[in-house]
């Protein structure tokens, strides 16, 4: 546990020691700020109980941001260590493979959460300009955050997995992007198939549909199970890849 914390702290610190961390933060806040502006626009036109948090947590901007941020945040994790040879110094220190994978993953997830922190200001702004008689319901915002965390956690886990496969950061990023894009587009399949059984089945693996529920303020435990099992699978595979140098 102690070694996990030491490794985790180093991973988080590394994000703030490289320009990429700041570039991602700026990009993220610009897009989220734009999404918030859209949300305020919709509100100012006056809607009746619509799922307005969709603008923040279900829009195409949200998804594109996530699809770009996840590979960029994770591409470095193992590829860079492999390329520079520091994996050798790291793995010859008395640390377990699992500890290293979990610490790196936790570091990426921490950075991802920190990306979202400034958007908490939106909640305050909404509350501040709340009109008397039309209270702003922040419930959907909380569940929207929960959904963003779940989907993000899954995408980051895919990213750490692809990063463990190669010593080239670009390859890792593109492989992660391809995988999570496939997962994202598969989320639209329920709209395309005709048979209702198929639609139900595909609905279980559709992050897009889950996110729509979450941003309506209707979180679904199936989403939790789906995304967390995805995380576990990806981390398990990452540990196996890391171990694989001992298989020969």
């Amino acid at each position: 546990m102690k070694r996990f914390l030491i490794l985790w702290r180093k991973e988080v610190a590394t994000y703030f020691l490289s320009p990429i961390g700041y570039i991602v933060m700026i990009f993220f806040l610009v897009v989220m700020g734009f999404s918030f502006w859209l949300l305020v626009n919709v509100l100012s036109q006056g809607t009746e109980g619509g799922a307005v948090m969709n603008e923040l947590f279900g829009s195409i901007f949200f998804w594109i941001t996530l699809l770009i941020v996840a590979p960029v945040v994770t591409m470095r994790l193992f590829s860079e260590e492999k390329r520079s040879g520091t994996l050798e110094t790291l793995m010859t220190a008395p640390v377990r493979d699992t500890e290293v994978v979990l610490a790196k993953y936790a570091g990426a997830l921490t950075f991802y959460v920190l990306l979202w922190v400034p958007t908490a200001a939106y909640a305050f702004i909404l509350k501040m300009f709340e009109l008397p008689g039309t209270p702003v319901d922040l419930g959907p915002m909380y569940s929207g955050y929960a959904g963003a965390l779940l989907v993000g956690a899954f995408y980051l886990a895919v990213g750490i997995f692809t990063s463990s496969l190669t010593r080239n950061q670009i390859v890792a990023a593109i492989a992660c992007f391809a995988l999570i894009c496939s997962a994202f587009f598969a989320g639209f399949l329920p709209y395309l198939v005709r048979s209702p059984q198929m639609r139900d089945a595909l609905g279980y693996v559709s992050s897009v549909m889950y996110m729509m529920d979450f941003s309506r303020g209707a979180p679904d435990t199936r989403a939790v199970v789906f995304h967390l099992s995805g995380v576990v699978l990806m981390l398990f595979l990452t540990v196996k890849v890391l171990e694989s140098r001992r298989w020969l």
Partner: protein
Amino acid sequence: MGQDPAAVAEILNKHVRRRSKAKKRSEYLFSYGTAMIKVSHLSKRFPGVTAVDDVSFEVRQGEIVGFLGPNGAGKTTTMRILCGYLPASRGRVEVAGHDVFSESLEVRRRIGYMPENVPLYPEMRVDEYLMFRAQLRGLPLRDGRRRLEEVRALCGLENAGRRIIGQLSKGYRQRVGLADALIHDPELVILDEPTIGLDPNQIREVRDLIRSLAPRHTVLLSTHILSEAEVTCERVIIINRGRIVASDSPANLRRLVHIGAVVRVELKAEKPQVRGVLAGLPAVENLVVEGEDNGWLRVRVEGSADVDLRENIFDAVTQRGWKLRELHMEPSRLEEVFASLTQGETVSETSGAGQKEDSVE
């Protein structure tokens, strides 16, 4: 009796070596003291290549042992196996009594390993990195700080603590790597090519540092530079194509391979006469006139091993009244031993190895 156990072991080893001349030299049979590293019948195969082939050796506590071999001989692979980074295909490796595969963490706690080319995190500061590494090895914060001071002083990093690793010169990076390998005060220090890419002053500093580590630490270092092994190490293990071809102190290795003595003579005389006279001396095997300069001939005389030709040459020269301005015997160097051992010849057949004098460095 009261004999030094090391000397006894040496005698026994020599005896065994003599009796099994043409056979494998990978067995190191007798040793004294506690073994820090115990490698027996270690093999490592990669798809298509056998990097390490049935290697056995021991390193005693407090020894400085050099792994010497041309590039691609299997040095790095062996070291990686010792550190638990790679598994062995076959054989058993123990460090301080712990198996490197089944008790990997125990072993890794006791090892300070500096890989080739010293990989570091370029975005971190020196102190930051060393503290991170110290804590990763389980040093409590206070001990970590104390050790940080110590290794910084030891490795000449007193003023570099706040500097960013990515901006350091090669020499400083090497020091950081050494400090990293030493910060947790490991029993065994493994250094892969510790002086590669350094300038001569830095090389001397690193060598002095390595020598100062024994007997508190056991040191295993690899190098392809012979003079380095000769200067730094108490014992040299020569490895070639994944096999150990020799293992002994530098002095004994030189004796092991009977390299002919080489004498350089500079004298004033006619070339044919010199040839006739000197080549006719007893024990002279070869004679080369290497150059002429204002009537002075530079001659290189090669004789069989353990014979000092100088006296005979001097007598011959003075008898004929020639002028002599230089007469000196070249000690056979480890490089010749190395060349003869790693170029596919059997150790016992290398009496003529002195001819391959211009070898690597």
